[in-house]
């Protein structure tokens, strides 16, 4: 008796749980990963409010998702049929989930049918490409990031060393780092176990993680030469300590214990907030090869879920969030580098040293393919760095093994 009643309740709750959205008012659920209470979140919520005001027939529910859990949460929710309509994703994340399919369909909506060509002409072609998985376009790009050389003016002044310039070579970098070093201060803080910081050196020696067709090319001679050069910054020149991690890199720079750092615009606000007198220059040219170091470019964009019942409205919101207007606010207030090319000519953007500096660096950015393999390449390079640093392998052997592992993974 009670059992039947319980079963009935169960059935009723399922029946009511699957209610459909009303035709009148569309509700767009959007997930973002901006830190709670941050200026980014404020700009975002303001933009959403403006969108709602301009589109009275659309309601937006903005949900804050912890950044580290964003992807797993999206995958889980998609499998459970509760995916949001719009989600903020990086190109690496697109690469990680592009292959996932539920009931034969991908998690994200291909945006190509949704866009008019006029809506994407202003967008950086590299950014658009980064949001594509195989042929589909899974996100409307809004921002980009790359490492550049940031330096502490006061420490340069104190050591009477000339500021870095765009024409610097790696020899200049090493010489300056040595001149700047004292008991308290190190010339440059670099995380030697992080592949993301190795990649610029790799490109500076003519290597690259992938070739034009997306095949791994870790086993090139340039890559091995770069790896040795990178680790020699500690082993030979002793200008960096191999024990510096990501966290201690930014901490050391922030407390004035490091004169230079290779970092993205994402930390700029923190550095300025700590009272540092900082400036930036392009990544130097490698003296041995004459090639400029190219940091890996990364992008963020807005993607629409394949499950969404309000795709048109979600695309509308994505287009608004990707508009030059909103991107400009993010750029000027929070140093988020825009992916909209029209903004490069904007007088406010051009006169902003930081944004224009990063945009200049972005021209020398390395575009990596957006696929499953790309997100796995870091782990392989990290392993190679670890093994070479410990002296268990030489650079060539380690990178060859890393390359073989990448081939194996991508062949699966």
């Amino acid at each position, binding site marked *: 008796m009670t059992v039947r009643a319980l079963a009935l309740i*169960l059935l009723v*709750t*399922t029946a*009511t*749980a699957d209610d459909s959205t009303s035709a009148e008012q569309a509700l767009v*659920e959007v*997930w973002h*990963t*901006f*830190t*709670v*209470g*941050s200026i980014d979140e404020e700009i975002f919520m303001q933009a959403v409010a403006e969108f709602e005001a301009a589109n009275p027939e659309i309601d937006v*529910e*903005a*949900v*804050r*998702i*912890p*950044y*580290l*859990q964003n992807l797993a*949460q999206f995958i*889980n*929710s998609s*499998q*459970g*049929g*509760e995916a*949001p309509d719009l989600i903020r994703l990086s190109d690496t994340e697109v690469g990680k989930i592009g292959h996932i399919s539920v009931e034969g369909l991908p998690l994200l909506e291909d945006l190509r049918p949704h866009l008019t060509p006029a809506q994407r002409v202003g967008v950086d072609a590299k950014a658009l490409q980064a949001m594509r998985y195989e042929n589909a376009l899974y996100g409307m790009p809004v921002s980009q990031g790359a490492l550049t050389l940031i330096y502490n003016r006061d420490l340069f002044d104190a050591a009477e060393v000339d500021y870095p310039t765009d024409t610097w070579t790696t020899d200049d970098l090493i010489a300056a780092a040595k001149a700047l070093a004292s008991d308290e201060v190190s010339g440059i803080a670099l995380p030697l176990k992080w592949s993301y910081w190795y990649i610029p050196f790799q490109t500076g020696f003519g290597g690259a993680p992938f070739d034009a067709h997306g095949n791994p090319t870790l086993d090139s001679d340039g890559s091995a030469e770069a790896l040795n050069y990178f680790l020699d910054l500690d082993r030979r020149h002793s200008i960096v300590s191999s024990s510096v991690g990501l*966290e*201690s890199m*930014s*901490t*050391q720079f*922030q*407390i004035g214990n490091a004169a230079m750092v290779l970092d*993205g615009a*994402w*930390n700029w606000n*923190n550095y300025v*907030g*700590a009272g540092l007198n900082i400036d930036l220059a392009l990544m130097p040219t490698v003296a041995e090869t004459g090639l400029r170091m190219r940091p890996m470019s990364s992008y963020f964009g807005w993607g629409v879920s394949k499950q969404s019942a309000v795709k048109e409205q979600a695309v509308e919101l994505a287009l608004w969030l990707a508009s030059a207007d909103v991107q400009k606010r993010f750029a000027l207030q929070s140093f988020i580098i825009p992916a909209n090319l029209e903004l490069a000519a904007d007088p406010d953007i051009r006169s902003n040293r930081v944004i224009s500096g990063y945009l200049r660096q972005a021209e020398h950015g390395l575009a990596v393919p957006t696929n499953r393999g790309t997100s796995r390449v870091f782990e392989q390079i990290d392993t190679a760095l670890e093994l070479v640093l410990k002296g268990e392998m030489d650079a060539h052997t380690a990178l060859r093994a890393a390359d073989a592992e990448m081939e194996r993974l991508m062949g699966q």
Partner: protein
Amino acid sequence: MNESSLAERWYVPAEIQALRLWLPFAVVVNLIILGGEALRADGESQLIVLAGAILLVLLCLYLPDGSRGWRRPISQFIAAATLFIGGYSLIQGSTLPYDFWAATWLLLPAALALYWLSAGASGAWSSGAVNQKLAETGLARNKTLAPILERFALHTLLLHAVALILVPVVWIFDVSISPGNILGGRIGDAFSLEHYRSMLFGENFWRWTTNSIVIAIGTTLVGLLLAIPAGYAFSRYNFAGRKGAMFLFMLIQMFPGIIILVPYFLVMKTLGLLNTSIGLIIAYSVTALPLCVWMLKGFFDTVPRALEEAAMLDGCTQLEVFFRIVLPLSLPAVAITALFSFITAWNEFLLALVFNTSNDAYTLPVGLASLIPATGQQWGDFAAASIIVSIPVVVMFIFFQRALIQGMSAGSVKG
């Protein structure tokens, strides 16, 4: 064997008993310090600590036994040597607080040993001069001295535990009151309440807190409501399926959770429990059940059945027996299972994240996780939040301590 020699044989001064117990501890601590010196790769310090540890072992082996008087000068000599080595390491070593602490672990045992071996009643005993009178006064003296020494040892032990616990906590606290959002810096070098201010004056924080409190208290109540009857039945009755059911409670904890998140999600969705407090309350109650049921069963086992049977004979119903006798006697266990349920619900992260995707339904752990940005970390805010988050648990605990103490006094009633 006459009475006097019995007293003589039985008598060991409390100081010497204490040394016998403490010196092995001092050796262990010095071995740990030796490990620290190995990390520092400081050859000389390693040698010093090693020598100190060996001397302490020797001292332990050659402590006077009350009859062999020749042991006293030997142990005195060893103690003096240890004292010398400890003093040397203090002078030679760096001036970090850690080094003072390390040196103390050589100096203090050695100094105490030297003093006790040389002076007073224990000194006399050590030289082998034991007579009946000395033994009898000594035994009386031990009665007052032993608790003092024991208390000293207890506080030393607890203070070390407290220090180990507090180091990270103080560090988190320091980060929380430092301006900026960095990890490094010296303890206490700057002061600012900006992080507390930004946490406490944000509306989000209070919403998360409210959700967490509702869910944690709900879990505690539902958990106890489910676990107490079950634990009682397992303890008191032998019924068909008892063993299997008890094992079943353990069983559900054994399957690794991460792979079954999606089916779990579907169950909650089917039950209409996503984005609700009730959903998490039920999920957490079930998570906490195995421990609560087993813990309570173990406690009910210690409540003598005779008490219940007597009450039954007096005409109490089973329910009355349970509420009047069994439950009051098991209050410590109820308090601990309640605390466990509360903390489980208060600190859980993954289910709270997966089952809720709405800013309004977030609990504190999920809310705090959204303080971690894509790059870098808002360490200051994060630390301030974590200090604030642990306060309700501490308050809750102080509240529960009363239940623990009540349980203790109730326990004495039953004797």
